[in-house]
């Protein structure tokens, strides 16, 4: 009879001890956690967040030579509204996104599903598909520029063998943007493929076994099991690719010359930003373009977040 209260006393005493221990433990965990993320956080603050704040401020200024600037209020934003080149750049970027993002995701899923099978030499294929990702964009652009060259390029040489006179892939204003899109899709497949592969491997085998027992064919399995269970990964990849596609610059910069006839029909928003910031030294206006781009990306990503409830399955 006496033992019972004693036991509870001991227990509650223990509990107090444990919980205070947990508190100190927690505190030191916090300390180490903050210490560990400090370098990254600092980098983030100094190289990302602070420049965003500064950029926002500079979008209300006009710049002279070598870093002098003055406050001009909303002037830059008024100019944005009247700028036909900006509208064209938005159009170019939209076409680029409409083609690269869905086609890129579609092709990477196909490649990932194929390379997820038990086929011979699949790690070789995986490496081959991933190679463009580890290659410098500048190098990719240079090589493709040579392939595309109208007079000496490989594509037009191959076309000439079958009697077709090839177009000017990167100088014809009607074609150049699509030539760039092809390169972008080609170089982006590998990266998305790796993410999809890891997603595919996360799908439990039992679903497939059950489907097999029920007599489902490979196409039904793909649409009824693989695709829905892969949807969170597809959602992630589509958000990342969309943001990346909005910021396209390097391919256009490397493949389209400054005096190229196709520049107007290919220049993206970030290219226009670069042009104003570093060529025309109109840094205030460039900052306004950057703010606009940030706003557009935020809105589109928010829309995606809302829409995902309709098609993304978290099991």
């Amino acid at each position, binding site marked *: 009879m006496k033992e019972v209260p004693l036991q509870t006393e001991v227990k509650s005493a223990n509990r107090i001890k444990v919980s205070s221990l947990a508190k100190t433990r927690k*505190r030191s965990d*916090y*300390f180490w956690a*903050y*210490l560990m993320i*400090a*370098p990254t*956080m*600092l980098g983030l603050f100094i190289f990302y967040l602070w420049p965003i704040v500064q950029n926002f401020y500079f979008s209300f200024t006009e710049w002279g*030579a*070598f*870093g002098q600037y003055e406050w001009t209020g909303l002037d830059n934003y008024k100019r944005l509204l009247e700028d036909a080149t900006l509208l064209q750049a938005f159009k170019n970027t939209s076409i680029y996104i409409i083609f690269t993002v869905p086609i890129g995701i579609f092709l990477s899923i196909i490649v990932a599903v194929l390379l997820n099978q038990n086929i011979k030499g699949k790690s070789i294929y995986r490496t081959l598909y991933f190679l463009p990702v580890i290659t410098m964009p500048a190098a990719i652009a240079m090589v493709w520029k040579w392939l595309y*060259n*109208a*007079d*000496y390029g490989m594509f037009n040489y191959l076309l000439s063998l079958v009697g077709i006179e090839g177009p*000017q892939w*990167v*100088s*014809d204003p009607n074609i150049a943007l699509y030539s760039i899109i092809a390169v972008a899709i080609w170089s982006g497949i590998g990266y998305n493929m790796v993410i999809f592969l890891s997603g595919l491997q996360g799908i439990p085998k039992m679903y497939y076994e059950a489907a097999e027992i029920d007599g489902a064919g490979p196409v039904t399995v793909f649409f009824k099991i693989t695709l829905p269970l892969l949807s969170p990964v597809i959602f992630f990849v589509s958000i990342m690719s969309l943001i990346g596609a909005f910021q396209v610059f390097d391919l256009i910069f490397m493949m389209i*010359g*400054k*005096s*190229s*006839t*196709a*520049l107007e029909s290919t220049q993206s928003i970030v290219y226009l930003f670069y042009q104003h910031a*570093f*060529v*025309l*030294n109109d840094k205030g206006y460039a900052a306004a373009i950057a703010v606009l781009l940030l706003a557009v990306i935020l809105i589109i990503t928010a829309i995606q977040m809302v829409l995902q409830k309709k098609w993304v399955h978290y099991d």
Partner: protein
Amino acid sequence: MKKWIIMLVTVVLGLIGLSGCSDSDAASGGEKDGKAEITYGFWDKKQVPAIEEIIKLFNEKYPDIKVKTEITPYGQYFQKLETAATGGALPDVLWMNGAHVVQYAEGKVILPLSEMAEKDDYSLDNYPESLIDLYTVVGEVYGIPKDYDTTGLWYNKKIFDEAGVSYPDETWDWKKLKEAAKQLTDKEKGIWGYAALMGNQGGYYDFIWQNGGYIISEDNKSVGFDQPEAIEALEYNVSFIKEGLSPTQAQMTETAASELFSSGKIAMMFDGPWMVPEYKKNPDLDVAVVPQGKKRAVSIHGLSNVISSNTKHKEEAWKFVQFLGSKEAAEVFAKTGTVIPAFNGTQDAWKESVPNLNLQAFIDGAEYSVPLPSVENTGEIWQYETDVLKKAWSEEISIEEAAEELTKKANEALSK
């Protein structure tokens, strides 16, 4: 509460780490074993052998000054400088062109040299006066001339021989150039008679001047692209493309005209002496003076070496600039045939460096040459020229429309 203290500590620790980085950076950029290190920024990789030899000669004289070279392709050179100048990180000594010197001098990012030159008794009379003038801003000299260049009419002797056309000479005018281009164009062989380049120096500027027009008015307030003389000159230039005598603008962006020319696809084109190292490799090529219009004119431009205001080694940089401007250095440039050295009297050595080319054509041009205009916003105007004239060259818009649009934009830039 404690959380905040921990946060603070981590931030402080992080900052110490960061400042540690910057400390070591500063140490590596400074002096090493008593040697001062200066950087020399420029864009033309064809001149690297000559510059390396000059640095070697310089180090025989001043073994304690180490010179590091920093090459940036021309396409990005001035963009990089602009950013570097804003951050106070310009190379100690660097190449400057006429289009940017006013902006850099007025922005006080390069040093005036007159006083130092006077103190050291360094004579500026050794260079063509027009070049010293080009680099004089409000009475102060900012650059020591390095070289100059005019334009010549380069041609392919083999194509001329095959078409039975006589080689260009000083009697040629616009009419003759057009005639010859027609005779030399051979569609079947894929040979164009002439390359109507969309470039200002050695391109439409020269034609505009030859036709009696002007680029920037004397009071620096307006441009002359919409004047009848200029429109006529631009039309003449583009007519080569319209008549199929020149590759189109798109073709010339796909493959540079200079490459088409050196591989025998183009019979004639305007180009500067800086192409000598490239073109001398093909024995079929030679050069003559540019044809005349209503009068003789050719653009002249020269580069100079300037010192940045942010240099930590002003004395050493000045010594290097003096050496770069010396007869000794000019002779190295002359010998390698890269550019026409600016130092008076060394041009003959340059001419003789490549005896199989008629390099005299470039030196002759200097007599009736017109310097490239230079105002504070020259760089911006050049950008508009490319943006707008490109559309005329690719026949998207008419010459009149292009001239009007360009004049409007350029005049706005001038009024800033």
